[in-house]
């Protein structure tokens, strides 16, 4: 069972980003069918008849950001417990049944959502729906399971965070980035709060958010919407809609100070630097800039021909790696980031200075029409490649819908990228990159004689 660390890239762009030739305006991406059950559960179907298999996913609009104060980690621990059992399917038989039928499965938790999926032969779709709909409401919470799984999650935290100085720094930097929004807390939770989570905490989170009217079903593969609809009605449609828990409309106050977060550790052999600016996304803040910011990120940081890589790595020869990223796909506030690491033996200061010079140059001169056209073409080509699997449509549609986008939003992605102008990119850059209330991180080796 996995955990999505706080956004690196959006779900759509994670699959729709590489390189390109223009897609005709108006060309859709996945051509899905969608409908809504009477209880409010959204359903999306993408037919793909390459192999006789389907991917079946249920996404809940419930992630770490929905946890009550002092209960960080409850969304993720609950995700683990979802594999333990119900009255009808106790003692971990869920996974046994899926495996016995040749299925692969997993689950993931992010700040914004929790998702469960199985990939399996198409004629096993009904069985997967029976199992998944059963654990939407009938989960059994045995104290013994909770205690064991808590140990597993603590081991997971050690693997992902405690054993890795870069991850420890990232966790601290994230807390600096958000003063008020729960994004300041790690998805996996703080250790002392994971230890303190109770059975009641888990049951309350489950009751608050695991409901059909808070879920999205995505089926991709060798099926048609006419086959999926009656099955979805039979298994998910029988679950009544419920009143959801209290949803807080978290707003982040304006950031007014730049912050520097540094971590020095003997485990670090290679320093690295990053800076994150506050930015709007598809859903939160000045959303009109989101598509232009995606184009900007591609121009600045999209691979080895991007401005930053070319400048810092190829031409100035001061960095081993450098780039930029942007993640518009989140329910809450998001960021636009830059990162770089020096050549062996090099210092961080020249990296920071060169990056700041690139940002100043961008704000002074703007981007060129040629840069914008090439970036747009590359992004749009991703939409074609994204159709060449089951995973990309499932994640793009599920991840988009669950944060509050529509099917039309996702299908119109190439068109909206195509509509981005030079002026829009420059305006977006100005909006985001002129705000100096940034978070800068430095990951450093321990100096000689320290920390021994």
């Amino acid at each position, binding site marked *: 069972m996995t955990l999505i660390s706080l956004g690196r890239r959006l779900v759509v762009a994670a699959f729709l980003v*590489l390189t*390109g030739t223009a897609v005709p305006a108006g060309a859709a991406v996945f051509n899905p069918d969608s409908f809504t059950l009477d209880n409010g559960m959204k359903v999306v179907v993408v037919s793909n008849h390459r192999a006789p298999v389907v991917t079946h996913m249920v996404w809940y609009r419930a992630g770490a950001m929905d946890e009550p104060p002092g209960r960080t980690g409850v969304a993720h621990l609950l995700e683990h417990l979802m594999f333990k059992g119900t009255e009808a399917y106790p003692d971990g038989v869920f996974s*046994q049944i899926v495996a016995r039928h*040749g299925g692969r499965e997993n689950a993931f938790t992010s700040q914004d959502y929790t998702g469960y999926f199985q990939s399996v032969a198409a004629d096993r779709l009904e069985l997967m729906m029976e199992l998944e709909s059963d654990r939407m409401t009938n989960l059994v919470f045995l104290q013994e399971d909770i205690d064991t799984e808590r140990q597993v999650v*603590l081991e997971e935290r050690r693997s992902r965070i405690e054993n890795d100085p870069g991850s420890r720094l990232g966790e601290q930097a994230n807390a600096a980035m958000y003063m008020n929004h729960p994004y300041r807390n790690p998805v996996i939770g703080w250790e002392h709060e994971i230890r303190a989570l109770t059975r009641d905490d888990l049951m309350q989170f489950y009751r608050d958010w695991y409901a059909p009217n808070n879920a999205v079903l995505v089926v991709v593969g060798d099926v048609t919407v006419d086959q999926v609809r009656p099955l979805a009605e039979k298994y998910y449609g029988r679950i009544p809609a419920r009143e959801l828990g209290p949803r807080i409309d978290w707003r982040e106050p304006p950031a007014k100070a730049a912050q520097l977060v540094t971590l020095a550790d003997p485990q670090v052999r290679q320093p690295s630097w990053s800076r994150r600016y506050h930015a709007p996304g598809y859903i939160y803040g000045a959303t009109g800039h989101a598509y232009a910011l995606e184009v900007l990120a591609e121009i600045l940081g999209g691979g080895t*021909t991007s401005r930053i890589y070319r400048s810092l790595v190829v031409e100035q020869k001061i960095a081993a790696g450098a780039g930029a990223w942007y993640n518009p796909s989140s329910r809450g506030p998001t960021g636009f980031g830059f990162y770089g690491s020096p050549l062996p033996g090099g210092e961080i200061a020249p990296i920071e200075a060169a990056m700041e010079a690139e940002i100043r140059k961008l704000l002074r001169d703007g981007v060129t029409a040629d840069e914008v056209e090439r970036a747009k073409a590359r992004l749009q*080509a991703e939409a074609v490649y994204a159709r060449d699997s089951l995973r990309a449509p499932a994640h793009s549609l599920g991840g988009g819908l669950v944060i509050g986008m529509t099917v039309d939003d996702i299908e119109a992605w190439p068109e909206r990228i195509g509509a981005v102008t030079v002026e829009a990119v420059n305006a977006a850059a100005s909006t985001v990159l002129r705000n100096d209330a940034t978070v800068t991180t430095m990951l450093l080796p321990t100096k000689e004689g320290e920390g021994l």
Partner: protein
Amino acid sequence: MRMLCRAVTRIFVAAAVPAALLATAPASAVTVERVVSPGGIEAWLVRDTMVPLVAIEFSFRGGAALDPEGKAGLADMTSSLLDEGAGELDSQAFQQRLADLAVELRFSAGTDTIRGSFKTLNRNRDEAVELLRDSLTAPRFDVDAVERIRQQIMVVLARRSTDPDQIAERVWWKAVFPDHPYGRPVEGTPQSIAAITVADMRQLLRERFARDQLIVGVVGDITPGELGPLLDRAFGALPATGKPVRLPEATLRAAGQTFVISQDVPQSVVQFGQPGLKRDHPDYYVGYVMNYVLGGGGFSSRLYDEVREKRGLAYSVYSYVSPMDAAAILAGGVSTENSRVGESLAVIRAEWARMRDGGVTAVELEDAKTYLTGSFPLRFTSTDSIARMLVGMQYNDLGIDYIDRRNGYIEAVTREDVARVAGSLLQPDKLTFVVVGNPQGVEATAAAPDIGG
């Protein structure tokens, strides 16, 4: 979003379809054609018109294990430089051309092969194939690009030198193969990377990048008639023959040893393993099924149940089979809080012994078969994954109808087979353990080999 996936299931070599379980056998949905170009280059093709693109996966026989003494990392570094300028185009121009045409082109070195992955939209196919051809036959190795890639590899090596997972893996391979190239890291060491020259890389190309070492799998919207000339344009300029691959058989050493590398981290990372069965061994599939039950089966294996589900000792625990050209291993890993490492290792040893002494139950065997056969069609969901399978089938000499036959090999495995193979293969006392961290309840039996860094 960056999704962090669990490292539990590493071993999906190939599985097939049980007629009993699945209404439609995917095998029949896939037709593999043998295409030979006018110039004599063979490729296996699966036509798939769903998306207007073509994926070409290819391998050259011979990988990092053939790197000359003192030049470990040569195959890897060469692979990294093939798309850093070729023909008339320098690094930036070549990369820009790839980006503008939306071509995906990647090379990577393994121990036994150097692999290429190429994917293009059909509308750019002709121009894209020129880039593929130039990367294979006319890479420039400009000094700027070479030094940049060298520095980037150095940075990666520096990072890995303190990463407990990387340390555990490198020490394990060095300890088990002290006198064989398999004991050297594919990525090289700072010393060997510093020693690699452009002449070394050009020699590697001459010796390895030849048509008689080449294996090609193609999937996508292309006819055999179109593919033939395309193969000649992509690969026809390569020399007909290369240097034959000669790799001495490797014997695993350090049986029964436990190595401890002290590191100040809260969780110890453990790698363990012993000899396995090679791909052409008559009992290969028996070992494959056995490993699924032991620790290969994702959320349903004995190691997962005993270490994670019952005791909460780890987030990740697994075993896998890895058949290579000159050796085979049955290995695994676990990560556990320092104070409980001894307990984890005891459980793993006990499970090794239980399988050796008792084999699998009828239910376990049936479940393994239905999973391994039923999950096979999941490998047919993208063009590049199918193309990789076509390369693997040719590399391992499995026959063009392998997809139809594969199922039968799994179905044929009996409890008696597993008991026989487990009894002779599994040696809990001969497992080689490497532990990185501050483990309690673990005694080192010998000094760990030096991996530099």
